[in-house]
């Protein structure tokens, strides 16, 4: 293994790969990705890979919009078909309070050039004919939202990065980070030591422990999040169906299977357990059948789980640590880190190489928690 690097990225998921690719694309050399398992074996390979631009804060809308712009041409850019499917997100509302929030969101989104609009229950049914409207009082639809194949996207970034000279070491686990004088010195792995002035923590569900290795306390924790897929069936509808209050997201994928899950922050296991529960498949089946009754006839074929890396305000923590020079973080994505990876990867690369970013992300720094400047995003699962 290499002994010395200019930049070491810990974690070979979508974040680590996007950062590495963007660094290399900007001309950086001697970049190494260290992955304790295999490419996309973490949350990136387990996620729904839904991409939406419908958020409630200006910053998130802009980041999501810019990310979608990158996704739109990413297959060509990476020379890897990531199976982008821009079928839209239909976000459903069940309460007046939600409708009011959605109205505000739509005004904001439209002002930023995002094509979202309010829809009535009847319009929702036109978009998704098999929908059962029970309890639904409206919603929003953005036709340019969509999803990708998460494995192909991560592989695409990893391979493109390697073509630009990045070294990707699978089965290489970082066990220690050596620092001196509030600077990074080296990382120690199960395969040896690498001297480096810069470390990027992109360890997903393990970003907290990786922070501790560098003596840094990152206010994140990991929580299991489960997901299932059905057998492939004839095309029924296309967009992602999502609700914040009823708590679900699911979608028929282009190959016919219906994929989705729900968040269960009160009951789900905290830590790095990625096992499955029958309670999840039962509850999720009920939610799916209630909303799209015809799914009663369909079999589930698989369920699995991954980790949400949660931050106190459910927003990512991006940037260099103020007390540790050379220690960059791209963590705490709280369940929407796949969709943001193209843009955050680019911005982290800019930050490392130029010291500034083309879209401001300074509000997402780790210092915000001490300052009490948490970000209030109303639209997350």
């Amino acid at each position, binding site marked *: 293994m290499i002994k010395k690097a200019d930049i070491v990225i810990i974690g070979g998921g979508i974040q680590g790969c996007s950062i590495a690719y963007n660094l290399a694309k900007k001309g950086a050399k001697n970049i190494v990705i260290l992955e304790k398992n295999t490419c996309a074996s973490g949350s990136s390979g387990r996620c729904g890979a839904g991409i939406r631009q419908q958020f409630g804060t200006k910053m998130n809308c802009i980041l999501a919009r810019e990310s979608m712009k990158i996704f739109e041409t990413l297959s060509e850019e990476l020379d890897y078909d990531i199976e982008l499917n821009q079928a839209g997100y239909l976000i459903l509302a069940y309460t007046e309070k939600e409708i009011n929030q959605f109205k505000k969101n739509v005004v904001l989104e439209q002002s930023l050039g995002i094509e979202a609009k309010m829809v009535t229950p009847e319009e929702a049914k036109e978009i998704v004919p098999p929908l059962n409207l029970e309890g639904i009082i409206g919603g929003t639809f953005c036709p340019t939202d969509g999803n990708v194949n998460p494995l192909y996207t991560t592989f695409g970034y990893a391979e493109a990065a390697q073509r630009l000279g990045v070294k990707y070491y699978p089965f290489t686990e970082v066990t220690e980070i050596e620092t001196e004088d509030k600077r990074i010195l080296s990382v120690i792995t199960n395969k040896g030591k690498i001297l480096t002035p810069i470390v990027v923590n992109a360890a997903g569900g393990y970003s907290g422990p990786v922070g501790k290795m560098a003596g840094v306390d990152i206010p994140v924790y990991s929580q299991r999040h489960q997901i299932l897929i059905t057998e492939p069936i004839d095309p029924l509808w296309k967009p992602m169906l999502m609700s914040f209050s009823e708590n679900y997201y699911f979608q028929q994928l282009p190959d016919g299977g219906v994929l989705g899950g729900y968040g269960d922050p009160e009951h789900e296991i905290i830590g790095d*357990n990625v*096992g*499955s*529960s*029958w309670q999840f*498949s*039962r509850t999720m089946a009920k939610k799916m059948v209630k909303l799209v009754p015809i799914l*009663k*006839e369909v079999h589930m074929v698989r369920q699995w789980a991954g980790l949400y890396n949660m931050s106190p305000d459910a927003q990512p923590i991006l940037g260099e640590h103020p007390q540790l020079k050379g220690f960059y973080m791209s963590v705490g994505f709280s369940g929407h880190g796949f969709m943001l990876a193209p843009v955050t990867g680019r911005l982290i690369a800019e930050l490392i190489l130029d010291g500034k970013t083309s879209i401001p992300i300074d509000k997402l720094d780790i210092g915000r928690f001490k300052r009490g400047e948490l970000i209030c995003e109303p639209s997350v699962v």
Partner: protein
Amino acid sequence: MRETDIAIIGGGPAGLSAAIYAASLGAKITLIDDGLELGGQLIKQTHKFFGSEAQFAGIRGIEIAKKLIQEIERCKNIELITNATVTGYYEDEVITIIQGADGNIMKKLKAQRIIVATGASENMLPFINNDLPGVYGAGAVQTLMNLYGVVPGNNVLMVGAGNIGLIVSYQLLQAGIKVEAIVEALPKIGGYLVHASKIRRLGVPIYTSHSLKEVYGTDWVEKAVISKVNKNFEFIPETEKELEVDTICLAVGLSPLSDLLWQAGCQMKYIVELGGYVALRDDHMKSSLDNIYIAGDVAGIEEASSAMLEGKIAGLNAAVSLGYRVDNFLELNINLRKELKELRANPLSEKVKIGLEKALIKREVD
């Protein structure tokens, strides 16, 4: 939620033997099998069994199944759930069961001990058009013919000359179906030579160092291309032969059906001599998890005779671990293990024995 002392998953010779043994100690048993009938592989095995005499050698598989099922039906403390698939083993030690081929109700069962006796699945082979109708596993062909009285086709190419390939070829011939040839990738026949000579005498060529390269057909198999292979199993160019067949029968080995054990988090190991990934186990057939036991083909591809003995050992020890008593427990354990050892004391079991050694968790005291 339903509860039981011991849930046994799989009603083949291993699961049935485990159930009978554990029930005889008084444990409450729930036996789940996905077949329409109990018996696992046995219910289609119309041939006389090889193996040791104590373990029914000379008797036909279907007769063994009948005997075991009769015994099961006499046990009041065995609950049977047939035509039902165990779909998962979850973190709260609950197993989920879906009944019926189109079942849409998920039953839950909580058992203090679980014996996994799910048997094996047939291996597939990669070749061009291997998804055409007419491509079967040998076990499926056996089921079609011997259980349902349906012939799979008229002209068969058998792939694999191990015992299963030879026996099923013979049964096809008995049913009046033409077996065009048997191909075997290894340089020599794997099964018993008596079986092989019987088939040769009936005019079926056995091509060793040959494999199936490709099949043709519009809606189903119409033609197969076989070819010679070298030591590394690579096709040798210009040795192809075309055969007019409508059925391909794959008898290229079995793999332990160990998915539930993976999900449970048992320590697993790839052991080529046992057919693939198996759970490590101690000599009580207990896996690395205290509540999970294994028996039969899922513990390593072997025979019905050894499956029954392993089932008995698993059943006995699972019941005793729950506090059910039997006077001569130690002696019973020793005797069952002795029988297994004798059964495996032949040159054909050498490979299995190497595999079993690799899979054994040695306990400090016994």
